[in-house]
């Protein structure tokens, strides 16, 4: 390691490096642990958990697109109870941060989940997935309404002393406004971005290729969009940013950090290269050596605009 310090910190929580694994792309860590040493990464964000188990959408749930993929898993998950009983024990063997991602259909459900989960010491932080339909408001997405994001943030912060990250939707005109609201209401960081809304049709049947009609676009295709969103937040709001979207290699990680990210998450790449995180950590060390950087975190928001 030659004294190069890859660690980063968010709200007092120390990450040994800025590489986290994104929610929904590594389940609860078990399967990927066979390809990747979880002790070597900054943290793992678990699949969105809801209060009760969710079955998720019928197939077809995924479609490949040009340098990307669409998914509509429908938040299939084991629910809070089974998560605590069956999933946490496995994860807590590892020396890495466990960030528990929460999805809910009402504000009360977010609060209830956090209240229960915050008693589990193994959980280091929460990530709140606001890209969920609000059943009370007729299915409108929480994350598209700044007021709802404010309310959820404040409500969740009120019931936990652990760091709370708000995971923002990119499907809005100005993402920075949402980051500002999150910050005002006590969020410790924002995670950006979740997937872009997309679709694909089968031209022979005229039906959507995905059962849910639309899905979320992820992968390298969306990287330029994600990077612009991170930059937008960084230029308009003073809150730590966890960059997500199409990150596949160490150069991508560096771009996100330069554009404003303190840490990043790997999503779709885990499906293709489950050991990507290991290669990326090595790539970051090489870059620091070449550039004679001692502390990787000095890169965050180091952009020089023209």
């Amino acid at each position: 390691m030659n004294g190069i310090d890859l660690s980063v910190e968010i709200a007092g929580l120390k990450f040994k490096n800025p590489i986290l694994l994104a929610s929904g792309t590594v389940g609860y860590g078990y399967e990927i642990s066979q390809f990747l040493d979880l002790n070597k990464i900054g943290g793992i964000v678990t699949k969105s958990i809801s209060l009760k188990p969710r079955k998720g959408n019928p197939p077809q749930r995924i479609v490949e697109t040009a340098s990307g993929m669409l998914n509509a898993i429908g938040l299939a998950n084991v629910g809070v109870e089974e998560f605590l009983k069956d999933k946490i024990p496995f994860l807590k063997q590892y020396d890495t941060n466990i960030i528990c991602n929460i999805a809910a259909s009402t504000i009360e459900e977010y609060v209830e989940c956090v209240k229960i989960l915050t008693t589990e010491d193994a959980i280091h932080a929460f990530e709140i997935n606001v890209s969920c339909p609000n059943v009370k408001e007729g299915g409108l997405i929480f994350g598209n309404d700044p007021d709802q994001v404010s309310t959820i943030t404040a409500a969740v912060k009120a019931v936990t002393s652990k760091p709370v990250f708000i995971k923002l939707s990119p499907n809005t005109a100005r993402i920075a406004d949402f980051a500002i609201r999150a910050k005002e209401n006590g969020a410790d960081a924002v995670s950006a971005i979740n997937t872009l809304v997309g679709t694909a049709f089968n031209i022979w049947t005229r039906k959507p290729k995905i059962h849910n009609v639309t899905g979320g676009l992820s992968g390298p295709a969306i990287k330029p969009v994600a990077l612009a969103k991170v930059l937008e937040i960084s230029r308009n709001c003073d809150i730590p940013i966890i960059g997500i979207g199409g990150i596949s290699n160490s150069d991508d990680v560096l771009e996100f950090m330069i554009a404003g990210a303190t840490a990043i998450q790997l999503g779709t790449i885990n499906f293709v290269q489950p050991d990507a995180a290991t290669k990326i950590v090595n790539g970051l060390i090489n870059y620091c050596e070449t550039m004679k950087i001692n502390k990787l975190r000095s890169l965050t928001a180091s952009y020089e605009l023209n």
Partner: protein
Amino acid sequence: MIITEITVSSVEQLKNHIYHLKCYSPALANSFKAGQFLNLKVNDTTFPLLRRPFSISDVNGDEIYLLFNVHGEGTRMLTHKVKGDLLDVLAPLGCGFNTDGDFDTAVLIGGGLGVAPFPLLTKQLQGKGIYTFLGGRSEADIVTYGLKNVFVSTDDGSLGEKGTVVKLFLENLDKFEGKKIKVFACGPTPMLKALQAALLQNNIDGEISTECAMACGFGICQGCPIEDKNNSSKYLLVCKDGPVFNIKDVIL
């Protein structure tokens, strides 16, 4: 379950759209149960982005054989591979066929390239009697490499009986009088569905290898759900819980 590179030995065109890919991999060759698969990256760019799943068709010494159909861009790229090319794979994946159990005669039923896993399965069924029923649209879909005791049907009658392979099998049921049979099947979903119904009705034990679009192939994306017959509150995953299932366990 490892991530590794395997080395192309040869790519041979068997029929119009059907190729035989042989790869060298001492690390993997002895680790497969018939019905398991690998997930293969056809090139090292982001297009296509995802890996492509293929059944292990056969194993010969240190070599793994795949049998594949040219379907879209990814399989087209595979046809261009040459000796010495490296392919990045995740393997072995999924649960294979259960060849143990109380039967003396195995009936293999394949639709189109559903025959892919049968050569290895045939080897792993040693000691059992084997009957193989193959169906395809026409002669061009029928590959008999590595199979034993083959009966063929085609939709257009260009080879074997005219009609579906399920029909062919049912017409030959009398062959199995007095034998304890177990069916092993692989093919398109409509065929598996018809077969599942027929087997349940006739009280014959069977396993089917299913297919589904996959992003990861090893259980982390939740992209490959299949209805669990025994528990409607949860899906099973084709990649991890399958691709081979007992006909009693899934709803197609």
